[in-house]
């Protein structure tokens, strides 16, 4: 049984409970009073399928599939406009990231969701050397949508790249492996431990 199916079994018709137990800051969802300030405050809101207020109502209405496969939470740029204005002090930004994370864990992220793809690239890049290699990440990003598209984007951003190099923000030599954090072994140990803690937490609430 997939994790997703196990969760469906476990929480049956209570998606709110599922969110409360498994999503970061999920226990706040029930505090939403549907005032609408967050939705109106989101600078990217008009590009979302469902603004945060609607997502919270959908969770309460048990619309599990629509929520978890939605691209909405992937659109959050962490501007924090909603958090500072919410009259109930819901940590909306964190809930959005929590939902994205949970959807990813269950394998429900829409195919080719660009933010999810970028997040994966960022993560993989970071894990190698314990620091982000700007040059490689940038390249990977350019070619995210295929070779031809990548060359086009790279040409367009040529000036930006040159300026970054001039001001020492990006080193062309980084393409050859790139440098690592001082104690790379230690870094990997930290990450391993963190993963164990996270797995234990999930096992406690999850299937």
């Amino acid at each position, binding site marked *: 049984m997939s994790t997703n199916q196990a969760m469906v079994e476990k929480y049956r018709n209570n998606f709110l409970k599922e969110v409360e137990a498994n999503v970061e800051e999920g226990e706040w969802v029930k505090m939403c*009073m*549907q*005032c*609408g*300030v967050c*939705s*109106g*405050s989101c600078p990217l*809101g*008009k590009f979302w399928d*469902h*603004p945060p*207020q*609607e997502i919270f109502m959908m969770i309460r209405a048990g619309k599990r599939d629509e929520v978890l496969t939605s691209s909405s939470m992937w659109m959050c740029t962490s501007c924090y406009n909603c958090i*500072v*204005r919410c*009259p*109930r*002090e819901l940590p909306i930004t964190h809930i959005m990231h929590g939902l994205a994370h949970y959807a990813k864990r269950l394998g429900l992220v829409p195919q080719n969701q660009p933010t999810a793809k970028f997040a994966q690239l960022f993560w993989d890049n970071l894990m190698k050397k314990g620091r982000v290699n700007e040059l490689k990440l940038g390249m990977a990003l350019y070619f995210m949508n295929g070779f031809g598209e990548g060359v086009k984007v790279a040409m367009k951003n040529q000036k930006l790249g040159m300026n970054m190099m001039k001001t020492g923000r990006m080193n062309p030599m980084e393409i050859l492996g790139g440098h690592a954090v001082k104690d790379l072994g230690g870094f990997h140990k930290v990450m391993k431990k963190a993963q164990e803690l996270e797995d234990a937490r999930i096992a406690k609430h999850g299937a």
Partner: protein
Amino acid sequence: MTEVVATNETILVVGGGISGMTAALEAAETGKQVVLVEKRPYLGGRVSQLYKYFPKLCFPTCGLEINQRRSKMNPNLTILTMAEVVDLKGEKGNYTASVKLSPRYVNDNCTACGDCEKAVEAQFDDEYNYGLGKRKGAYLPYRMAHPQRYVLDPRIIGTPDADKAKAACKYNAIDLEMSEEVVNFPCGAMIWATGWKPYDAAKIQPYGYDRIANVITSVEFERMADPSGPTGGKIVRPSDGKEAKSVAFIQCAGSRDRNHLLHCSRICCMASLKQCTYVSDAYGADADISVYYIDIRAIDRIEDFYEKVKAIQQVKFIKSKPASIVADKDGNPVVHGVDTEGYKRFANAHDLVVLAIGMEPSVDKDSFPVDIVLNREGFIEAAPENGGVFAAGSASDALDVNRAVQHATGAALRAIQVVNSVARAEA
């Protein structure tokens, strides 16, 4: 020196709004000795600044007039205006109060003829009109002010204006030698009826009250609608004086919000519904009224009033707490948000936006001059630790006039019980 005749069977009432007046009169009419202390130069409190009362849409002046008559006729009632309680010592049944009296510079020879007002030149923001207009340095706070006696603004004292005022008075009513004094007197019980104040609208940053001329508060709107107010009762845009036919009301401005006031101010839904009628009365079919709300809280018998306003064709209800207000190039405030019914974005331009501002206690939590139990919003709790000190009206919670007056009558009864037990002990 002001003399106050009082004993430990006297009831001291602080605040002369509708609640304080009610408590003082109810107690005095049962034969108790009452001293009423009011910070402003006149009685009536914030009710005197309303144009009409919900739910009957009658004029508050009517109710105030009855109370003023009752107080004039009652020998048991001593009224001290421009006065504030600064200290209270002792215990239930045996207190000593210290009251600071600020100089009015006008004695009771004053006939309210207004000659001093004509003589002086300096002008100041008119606090009765929430700063929407100006008043002179010698002034009658408002036309029905009780007591009907002029006041000199302390800022003109020592300037040629003060001498001009004195010279203009035919009744020898102006006394420039008056100075601040503190009087101490005994009392057995105290009623704290200091009321409320509007929440500072500028703190609700996204609504632009401090930046956009055509965004005003509901208390200011009451003054604007009043024919004796700063615009002569015309509903206009402060930026250019043009008629404001498209008016938006924003509910819960500062209330029910953990960034501002935690509580629901309870009366602002009704106040906005009432104010919708001001606009539709003024502009009829040309009016275009929008009420932006989270939920409308019009409780028990006043639900009827809500139904009545809903039936006005020019009134739209939009279920949304707006996210922000910005001004367009013509100075129109544009309200931005998402409608909860359908999750549609809107950006609506209006002539005027009225913020239904929340009510907070008028006395600051941290500077209460007497020991008293306050709740987390700063309203007075009914608690045994308060001894012989009781709250009345909106000092205890956000209340409308009907509830404030009922509460004040209850407070009077509690105070009477205290002074009665003092009387019994001494008999």
